[in-house]
């Protein structure tokens, strides 16, 4: 190896310093804070062990937030992947290049727009746009639904998250489908497989890799999501859209209970790591090595 250990270390040094100081250190410092009774930012702190964890586990607000996070993350991940795969398969069967690139651009577009502003736009779309659309097509009863009321707010937030992230998943599925060796498909045709069988028996098993990435990606994306939910609902009404990132923010800055917020943050991070690892390991085992 012509890059010696010493030189290699020097090359990584700037990254080590900044990443170590501003990312790795805060993670461990956060763990420490979660074991203290710190309230506001300036307060002195005492070590109290697992007290914060026990408190939030017993607290209705955290339980509610935990439940909402799981619902939100699961439904968005499933919806995004189903819809993205559906669009990708249709595009894969379309020979028109023009149509292909137009659809790809339009579906991916939301992913580059500012999420915090997207939330405000969708707030008006749910408040005015969708009811107006329903009355336009004559569905008066549906136009009276209040999409941001407690019973519908979570579904509305989920739909917007899907709109934001379907494009990314779609691009990855398209790339996966394109990478399937055409010889495999031809072999299938010779054996008399119809297009549905070719899709389900040949193509989809060969893109397991894309499934793994997309499932991890969409789950992480949903677990992380703060901006869009914050600007759409601020966690409300009545905490029905308060996922864990919003819970952490609100408990830390509105309620000044930093110790508890830190405990919740650490729980959130642990869930993400465990879920991602489980998906990667379990799907990898089933992956077809082509």
């Amino acid at each position, binding site marked *: 190896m012509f890059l010696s250990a010493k030189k290699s270390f020097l090359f990584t040094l700037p990254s080590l310093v900044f990443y170590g100081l501003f990312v790795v250190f805060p993670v461990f410092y956060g763990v420490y804070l979660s074991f203290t009774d710190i309230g506001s930012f300036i307060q002195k702190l005492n070590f109290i062990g697992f007290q914060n964890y026990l408190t939030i586990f017993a607290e209705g607000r955290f339980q509610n937030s935990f439940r909402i996070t799981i619902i939100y993350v699961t439904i968005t991940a499933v919806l995004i992947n189903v819809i993205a795969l559906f669009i990708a398969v249709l595009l894969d069967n379309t020979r028109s290049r023009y149509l292909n690139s*137009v659809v790809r651009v*339009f579906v991916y577009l939301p992913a580059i*727009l500012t999420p915090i502003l997207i939330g405000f736009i969708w707030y*008006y779309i749910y408040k005015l746009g969708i009811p107006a659309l329903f009355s336009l097509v004559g569905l008066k009863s549906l136009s009276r639904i209040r999409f941001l009321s407690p019973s519908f707010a979570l579904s509305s937030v989920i739909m917007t998250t899907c709109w934001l992230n379907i494009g990314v998943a779609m691009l990855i599925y398209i790339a996966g489908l394109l990478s399937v060796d055409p010889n495999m498909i031809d072999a299938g045709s010779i054996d008399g497989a119809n297009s549905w069988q070719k899709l389900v028996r040949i193509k989809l098993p060969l893109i397991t890799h894309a499934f793994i*990435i997309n499932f991890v990606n969409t789950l992480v994306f949903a677990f992380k999501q703060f901006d869009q939910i914050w600007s759409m609902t601020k966690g409300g009404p009545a905490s029905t859209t308060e996922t864990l990132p919003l819970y952490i923010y609100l408990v830390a800055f509105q309620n000044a209970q930093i110790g508890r917020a830190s405990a919740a943050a650490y729980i*959130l991070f642990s869930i993400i790591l465990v879920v991602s690892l489980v998906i990667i390991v379990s799907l990898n085992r089933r992956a077809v090595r082509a």
Partner: protein
Amino acid sequence: MKHFRLGKVATSVFLVLVALLFFLPIYLTILNSFKSMPEMTRPFYSFPERLALENFRLVAEGTQIAHAFLMSLIVVVISLGGILFNSCLASYAIARNNSLFNRVLYIVLVAGLMMPFTVIMIPLMKLLGMLKIANKYGLVLVYFGLGISFPIFLLTNFIKGSVPLELEESAYLDGAGNVRIFIAIVLPLLKPALATVITLTAVWLFNDFLLPSLLLSSKEFTIPVSQSQLAGMFLQQWNQMLAGFTIIFVPLLAFFLSLQRYFVRGVTEGALKG
């Protein structure tokens, strides 16, 4: 055969509808940003009778959107510089020296992609407070670390896969030092990967909201922070709010459309190589 054709047409029509559906919210944003106050009571989808350009003037004057834009640009450019410097050097070392230390470092760096910012938000704010840099300088310095995960992930794989080691070895035998090899041989070959990294990172930096909202004072607000604050105030005059959004989205869309292929490459390559 006829049935087959019909299916194709139906698929194409369906795909066009999907594309339009995805674009609808953006179209509505632009459409409604041209409506005057009295017209806001008319249906959401109706065309404005005349283009209320004063919305744009009011927003531009009242909210110093140009200033926020400038702040955003400064933050993006400086942060991007630091991120590129850090990540190019580190990626090269990780790709070319497969020590245990570097392998662990790589995993720790890539794990950062899975970490919600809210997880480190509180300890980071406390840390920046202690270092007395809970301000715009701290913001940029934090990005130097927070933003390197994706670039290092992409660049390391790119160097391993597409930069031929033989070139570097022969330069090494000719007596070139590691730094010189890196600058003269590796960096020029990194261009396609760097284009991808720059576009995706720039958009992420531009759109980021939570960290700047916690660190910047109101005179230094970047676009997402200033516009979201205004959106809270403009609840009744959403035509003006949407005018502000239109002003921001148009350059973003132009940026995206002109550099489309780098976005696509970044999303798919980053993903499929992992």
